[in-house]
């Protein structure tokens, strides 16, 4: 049984690498340096996570970022649960990255990626809440001169022997002077009253009244605005630009080169800056890659499908012998394109620089990564830098490891000391300068014996490594291999392959085009789940077996994989007649520590595919806020199906062709299927799974399998618009 995933050293490297924490943090920060910042909020601090004020209000510190996924609410629920406080009195604050540096990383990682916001910090934030409760209890016991064992806390009230009673706020001051208990015992999740409940997320009201201030909306006294254009060919540089042509335009304050690769215009308003930038003649030195196209990239990946050299990700038995001895061989080649994040709020950052201080306001998935960028770009020491995090208008992986916009904003602000500069990217700049979901091709060969049992599978991936570009030290440690490429098909860990196949080889021929890759919601499970789960259907068809039964036979050793698959099959009515004209497809995977499955119902009319319904199951071990999980599941399907049907970043002349929603469409409400999510946390002592990303991968293969069931046709390259197929 494999209920508790095996955490070996390699999976730790993978995990850390994915988000830029721990081992492969990807930047250096002088933790414990000479910064003089104290506690953030006013009021008694009970450990680093909790402040209790005299009026009983509780402020929970949150290091991770909020972009609508609900992480701050979930983390606050976990702290409040252990604290035994009244939820209605809870608010939150972000300790700044500068404070984190000053306090030797007291709040741990700030990284909010890899679906790690909750699953990687739940233990220490719960301990933070429990420690604070113990301090409050001890303070009350001291005041009453009774043994602490006779005191208990509930709803922000402490009771003791002889009807004694006080509130958190009254003893907080005394409690703050007590030592912080180390590793307190945590509650059994069975006893949770606040965690595990569908509590309303923080911040909703401000988002429906226009009050929430995003990075795009920030205004500082005396602020100016900047628009920027970086070499559209990746690796290109600025050759020259004719500033005189635009420097007299209304509002324009400055026309400047930013680093080697970009030109910016600073003006009173952003519209003036952008108008001038559009009119500015810029000559680029396009560098070595100006002839690269999607076709040349595809050719190089294709060659990798049969290349000698490849890195092994997962292997057992003897795949060569199995294929040689097969009664029937099945073979298919799939291809997945570049994708862009296209966060609804384009990239931006606001910077104010003086020789004494550099401050940046930025929507970021990783406050520490932003801080490191401020340090690097400003040249100032840590005690003279600060980052103020703003809630994000979408992140999806674009705003974590990559802080190019922060670097740019500080570089511009340095030229105008004392003046705050707000740098906004146009949508076109945002899409030209993405950190793209990598391209990947995959050749799959399966061996069936004479009884149609699957005896062997070779899955050859050929394509781009994110880590080679972003965390080369990890790839170096692995002797050139990128372990992250095998997400969902790995030999163990949070992305373990679920099927038991006697002879298996998953390997990767690394082909790295010049297009900068990045972590895009779900990262490599997007393509791996399509490759594997569509091919499983192809194998089942070749074997003349039902797609569910074929999978079930191979999942005996992985009961949690089997459980989510069974759950969606049962709810969708697999094996029972579907409505007239409706066809079904399945898929499943283990990703980011969660077990996920989907069953889709589609109908096809001409070239139009209508996705009526998707039943989704997820087992993230524990569910901290079910209504938030529900929304993440449905939202992940919108993101994943938009990519499947419409989205591809085409490369032409070394640059990206699709620069706005006119050529890079996104699903609308009319196309939205009914999503039914089944949340089935298995509990137990094993690692928790993620929520924001895992389910994204199962929608596309379930829909593709349903389409094949409807038409007998297999589509193996994406997006579907390239095959004249539309989402109805």
């Amino acid at each position, binding site marked *: 049984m494999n209920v508790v995933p095996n955490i070996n050293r390699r999976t730790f490297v993978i995990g850390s690498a994915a988000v830029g924490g721990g081992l492969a943090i990807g930047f250096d920060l002088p933790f414990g340096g000479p910064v003089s910042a104290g506690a953030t909020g006013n009021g008694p601090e009970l450990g680093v996570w909790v402040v209790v004020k005299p009026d009983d209000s509780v402020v929970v510190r949150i290091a991770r970022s909020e972009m609508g996924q609900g992480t701050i609410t979930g983390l606050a629920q976990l702290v409040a649960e252990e604290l035994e406080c009244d939820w209605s009195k809870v608010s939150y604050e972000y300790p700044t990255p500068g404070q984190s540096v000053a306090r030797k990383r007291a709040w741990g990682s700030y990284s909010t990626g890899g679906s790690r916001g909750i699953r990687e910090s739940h233990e220490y934030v719960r301990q933070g809440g429990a420690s604070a409760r113990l301090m409050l209890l001890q303070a009350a016991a001291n005041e009453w001169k009774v043994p602490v064992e006779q005191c208990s806390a509930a709803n922000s009230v402490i009771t003791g022997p002889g009807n004694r009673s006080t509130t958190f706020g009254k003893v907080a001051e005394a409690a703050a002077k007590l030592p912080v208990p180390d590793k307190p015992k945590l509650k059994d999740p069975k006893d949770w009253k606040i965690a595990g409940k569908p509590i309303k997320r923080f911040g909703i009201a401000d988002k429906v009244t226009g009050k929430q201030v995003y990075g795009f909306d920030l205004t500082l006294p005396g602020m100016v605005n900047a628009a920027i254009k970086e070499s559209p060919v990746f690796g290109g540089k600025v050759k020259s630009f004719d500033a005189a042509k635009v420097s007299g335009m209304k509002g324009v304050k400055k026309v400047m080169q930013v680093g080697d690769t970009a030109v910016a215009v600073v003006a009173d308003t952003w519209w003036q800056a952008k108008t001038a930038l559009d009119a500015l003649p810029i000559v680029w030195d396009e560098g070595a890659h100006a002839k690269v196209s999607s076709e040349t990239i595809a050719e190089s990946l294709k060659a990798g499908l049969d290349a000698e050299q490849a890195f092994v990700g997962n292997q057992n038995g003897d795949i060569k012998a199995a294929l040689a001895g097969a009664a029937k061989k099945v073979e298919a080649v799939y291809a997945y394109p570049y994708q862009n994040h296209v966060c609804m709020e384009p990239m931006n950052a606001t910077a104010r620089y003086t020789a004494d201080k550099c401050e940046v306001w930025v929507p970021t998935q990783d406050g520490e990564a932003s801080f490191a960028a401020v340090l690097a770009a400003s040249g100032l020491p840590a005690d003279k830098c600060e980052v103020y995090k703003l809630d994000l208008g979408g992140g999806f992986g674009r705003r974590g490891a990559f802080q190019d916009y922060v670097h740019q904003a500080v570089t511009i602000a340095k030229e105008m000391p004392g003046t705050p500069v707000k740098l906004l990217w146009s949508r076109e700049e945002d899409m030209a300068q993405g950190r793209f979901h990598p391209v990947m091709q995959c050749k799959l060969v399966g061996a069936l014996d004479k009884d149609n049992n699957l005896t062997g599978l070779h899955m050859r991936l050929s394509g781009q490594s994110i880590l080679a570009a972003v965390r080369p030290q990890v790839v170096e440690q692995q002797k050139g291999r990128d372990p992250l490429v095998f997400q969902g098909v790995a030999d163990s860990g949070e992305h373990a392959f679920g099927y038991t196949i006697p002879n298996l080889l998953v390997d990767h021929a690394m082909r790295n085009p010049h297009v900068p890759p990045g972590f895009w919601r779900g990262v490599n499970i997007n393509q791996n789940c399509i490759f594997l789960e569509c091919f499983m259907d192809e194998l089942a068809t070749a074997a003349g077996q039902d797609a569910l039964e074929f999978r079930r036979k191979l999942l005996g050793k992985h009961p949690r994989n089997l459980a989510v698959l069974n759950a969606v099959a049962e709810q969708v009515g697999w094996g029972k007649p579907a409505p007239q004209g409706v066809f079904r497809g399945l898929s499943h995977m283990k990703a980011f520590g969660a077990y996920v499955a989907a069953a889709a119902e589609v109908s096809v009319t001409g070239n139009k595919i209508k996705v009526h319904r998707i039943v989704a199951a997820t087992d993230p071990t524990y569910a901290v806020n079910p*209504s938030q999980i529900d929304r993440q599941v449905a939202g992940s399907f919108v993101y994943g199906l938009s990519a499947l049907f419409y989205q591809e970043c085409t490369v032409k002349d070394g640059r990206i062709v699709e620069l*706005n929603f006119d050529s890079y469409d996104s699903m609308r409400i*009319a196309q939205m299927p009914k999503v039914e999510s089944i949340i089935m946390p298995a509990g137990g002592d094993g690692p928790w799974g993620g929520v924001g990303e895992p389910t994204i991968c199962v929608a596309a293969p379930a829909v593709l399998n349903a389409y094949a069931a409807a038409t007998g046709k297999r589509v193996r390259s994406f997006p579907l618009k390239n095959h004249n197929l539309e989402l109805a």
Partner: protein
Amino acid sequence: MVRLTINGKPHDVDVDPSTPLLWAIRENVGLTGTKYGCGIAICGACTVHLDGVATRSCAMAVSDAVGKEITTIEGLAQNGTLHRVQQAWIAHEVPQCGYCQSGMIMAAAELLKNTPKPTDADIDNAITNICRCGTFQQVRAAIHAAANA
């Protein structure tokens, strides 16, 4: 100088008349609830009401809005009471990141004004805003709830 009437108040703004209404509202008037998402009238993030009609303000010159009643997300609540669409949005916890939601709400408010009890098909036709977070399931539920409020 152009004179705009926004949420019932006149504003004289000193901009080039070709400036998109969106940027005049955001930068010159300082109402930042109306968002920029594409600048080419596709995503709907910049939706405002112009004489009651939901309009994408990013692709319209500010000069074309002169003399019209402009309502932005900040002006949707009346006398301190949130519009029923906003109330339904809170009850259904529609927003994720929230960035698209001003535009989504303005589109929904217009739909309910013209079609008090919209069908799913009415919603599909009227709401063409992009939401990268994928809140559509809650958007639909909240529109029906607001219609029945």
